[in-house]
């Protein structure tokens, strides 16, 4: 057992927000290190530092491989040393064959031409080790997502690997495929490879890992043998933190008047060709914050988007609004029904970054800002300015493009846009992602103010302390289904995590076989 990777006091920040705050990690040959932590704890950032995605001058701290200091300029430098990462999202080419995908970055050339025969032979050898049921000539798009994930792993093995980093590799694998993957991982371990395994699935961590490193808020919290820590301690390490100061006083009083009631909701996502929300039922009350928690990919965003009538989903089920059955076939119908949705990614689908702040705030309510059919924004200037001051948006002029604002202020513009429509149900998807603590606090205070005004607020968030600190009730989602509802004292980090994790192996088997 010799040391492969060693990091000391790694710091990394993105424009003022620190993602890593002094992380220490040690990886020896012939071991599997399980890396655990909540979403946003900094796991992926750390892996990107070690695999050369961020060049040496973009982070601080010491980082060595086999005792040599590393100065990676790009991923290629890391791969040359044998440090290879399999990312959570697939980086494959749908129109190429499996063999071409495996060797895309290191094609063997024979007399100036691609040596197709040799890559197919080598690929088939690797695929045989992996025990998959397709061969090297298969076109990638003919494979299932799980099969494609195996190709991604084959790609890593085809290189001369010394350190293999797997970032949530099993999220789209069936149980059988997971067992095959573990078999390959054990084989690599025997050959002296060091593996880092990132996963939310504690059962898998139990099965495959030798050591554990727990991260929280960009710091390494616990490092040691897996056998010396039990599951309860593990979860406590992952979530434990003092959250009392960040959250304004939770509103105790709950008005039992049901505003929104959803029954047997199913949402099929066209692009992924599968159900993302399955048989989901819940109610939301006037004057409360309802939280939706769950792991990455559990279907929180899909639930909100499909309820809002987004065109990526085919839905079934019923929505009752103030006890009347309604339909949200598309977003404009949803808006007319009194719904509002602040999206997860304000840059991608929340705001028009090049447009002015006032145009963005007005965009969702233009039909109501007219006199005799003509736009008369000047008449409504006051409402826009009121919202800007209510939300404490810091700006020099509302005529400037939104992109000139900071992340927190952009988020407030996105919320202002929807408050402009005077909604009755407000969906907030990751309302505080990537914004600083000050702006977070202001948004939390605003949410409480909105509840006092009688709004029904539904928050989907991967930020557990936020869900616990802010919400009256929390729905926990797991694989598109309702795993449970937590209320009052039950609403804790610990309980949410317990519900959010995939159930034990036994259940899993039933589903796959």
């Amino acid at each position: 057992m010799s040391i492969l990777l060693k990091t000391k006091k790694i710091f990394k920040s993105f424009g003022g927000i620190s993602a890593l705050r002094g992380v220490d990690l040690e990886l020896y040959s012939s071991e599997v290190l399980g890396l655990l932590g909540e979403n946003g704890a900094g796991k992926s950032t750390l892996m990107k530092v070690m695999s050369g995605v961020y060049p040496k001058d973009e982070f601080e701290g010491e980082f060595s491989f086999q005792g040599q200091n590393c100065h990676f300029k790009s991923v290629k430098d890391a791969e040359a040393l044998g440090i290879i990462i399999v990312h959570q999202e697939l980086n494959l080419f749908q129109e190429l064959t499996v063999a071409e995908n495996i060797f895309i970055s290191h094609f063997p050339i024979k007399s100036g031409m691609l040596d197709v025969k040799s890559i197919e032979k080598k690929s088939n050898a690797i695929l045989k080790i992996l025990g998959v049921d397709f061969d090297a000539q298969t076109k990638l798009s003919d494979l299932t997502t799980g099969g494609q994930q195996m190709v991604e792993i084959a790609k890593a093995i085809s290189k001369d690997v010394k350190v293999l980093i797997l970032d949530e590799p099993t999220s789209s694998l069936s149980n059988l495929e997971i067992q095959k993957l573990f078999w390959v991982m054990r084989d690599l371990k025997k050959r002296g490879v060091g593996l880092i395994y990132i996963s939310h699935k504690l059962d898998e961590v139990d099965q495959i890992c030798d050591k554990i490193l727990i991260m929280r808020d960009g710091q390494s919290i616990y490092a040691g043998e897996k056998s010396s820590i039990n599951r309860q301690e593990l979860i406590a390490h992952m979530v434990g933190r003092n959250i009392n100061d960040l959250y304004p006083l939770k509103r105790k009083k709950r008005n039992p008047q049901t505003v929104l009631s959803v029954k047997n909701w199913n949402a099929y996502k066209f692009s992924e060709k599968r159900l993302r929300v399955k048989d989901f039922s819940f109610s939301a009350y006037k004057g409360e914050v309802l939280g939706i928690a769950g792991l990455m990919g559990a279907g929180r965003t899909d639930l909100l988007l499909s309820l809002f009538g987004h065109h990526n989903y085919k839905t079934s089920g019923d929505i009752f609004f103030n006890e009347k059955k309604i339909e949200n076939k598309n977003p404009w119908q949803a808006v007319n029904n009194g719904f509002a949705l602040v999206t997860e990614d304000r840059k991608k689908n929340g705001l028009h970054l090049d447009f002015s702040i006032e145009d963005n705030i007005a965009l969702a309510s233009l039909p109501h800002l007219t006199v005799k059919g003509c736009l008369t924004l000047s008449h409504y200037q006051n409402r826009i300015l009121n919202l800007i001051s209510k939300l404490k948006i810091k700006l020099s002029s509302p005529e400037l493009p939104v992109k000139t604002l900071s992340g927190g202020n952009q988020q407030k513009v996105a919320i202002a846009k929807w408050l402009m429509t005077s909604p009755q149900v407000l969906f907030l998807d990751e309302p505080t992602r990537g914004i600083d603590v000050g702006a977070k606090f202001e948004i939390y205070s605003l949410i409480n103010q909105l509840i006092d005004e009688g709004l029904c607020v539904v928050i989907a968030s991967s930020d557990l302390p936020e869900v616990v600190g802010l919400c009256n009730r929390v729905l926990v989602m797991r694989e598109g289904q309702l795993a449970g509802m937590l209320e009052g004292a039950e609403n804790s980090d610990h309980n949410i995590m317990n519900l959010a994790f995939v159930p034990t192996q036994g259940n899993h088997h039933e589903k796959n076989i």
Partner: protein
Amino acid sequence: MKKTFDFKKFSTLIALFILFIILAIATKGDFLIPRNLTNLSLQISINALCAVGMTFVILTGGIDLSIGSIVALSGIIVGLSQVNLGWGEWGGLGSFMSLLLAILVGLLVGLINGLLITFFKIPPFVITLGMMVIAGGLALIASNSSAISPMSDTFKNIAKGFLPLGPSSFLMLAISVLTLYFFYKKFLQHKEKKTTTSAYLSETVLISISIIIPFYAYSSDRGIPIAVLILSFVVLAALFILHKLPLGRYIFAVGGNEEAAHLSGINVNKVKILAYLFMGLIAGLSGALLTSRLNSAAPTAGALMELDAIAAVVIGGTSLSGGSGSIVGSLIGATFIGTVNNGMDLLGIDSNFQMVIKGFIIIVAVWSDSRTKYK
């Protein structure tokens, strides 16, 4: 914070004036003769019309390659109605009906474009490329591959006629008074120290020049061309839609970020269909105007008009990816291209060379525009 002179906004206009000066010198003043300037505006008007429609489509993030063929097809339909149906003998009513028919043809093709693009989610480039070939073929079939002429005198007058000098002068006087009032309001703003003196003066001078040149030409020649009046009407309607109706904001929003527009409750498909409808309407109208000007409907009449329109829009500063741009910019762009054509004709440059030079000018214009924008 005082507003300073917005060079980006006026850069194309300034380039146009420089081009005017160069041509005036190179042609020893011939270029600036009122008759030539009037002819120039007649030559520009159809491309300018198409550029206005194209601006709508490009603002939504799309493109329409079929307008040349729509122009040809609606022109042929006009020719058939005037000659074969005998509407040419019905005087004013017949001309009006032919004009209406051309617009209907354009609207129909535009509607089909819009429906195919939105419902089958096929890129506009492909749909309108197909429509370019289909409508072009239909024009050849309907005309039996030969030109149709002549049109009635009233129909010819649509594109060739002039508003008599009397009413023309009155109209121009009215516009001048309105402009002066606009300058006065700007002056009040300037006095409130909202703009710098240099910005106020340069904007006033630039706008004045762009009004004085055509007014000087029209008043010393035959009056305002009817084609220019039609163009002005369409431009005013387009400006009204873009800046006074919610639809206008939606057009910008769809092109700026379609996903965000959808999630803001905007009916993206409806907005797109309306843009292609508007484009079709204008292409149909242009077909009628072209037939009127040439006094003949030829099945190949609209060839390459879509490219001139796209060039005008791009020179005018509208982003090809959608979401930002202006009608006025496209007008200036169309004027720029028309001026280059007219100037090279006056200088007696061989028409094959003209194409090469024009191509270079388009590239340089867009390149310099993108340089000022992203610096």
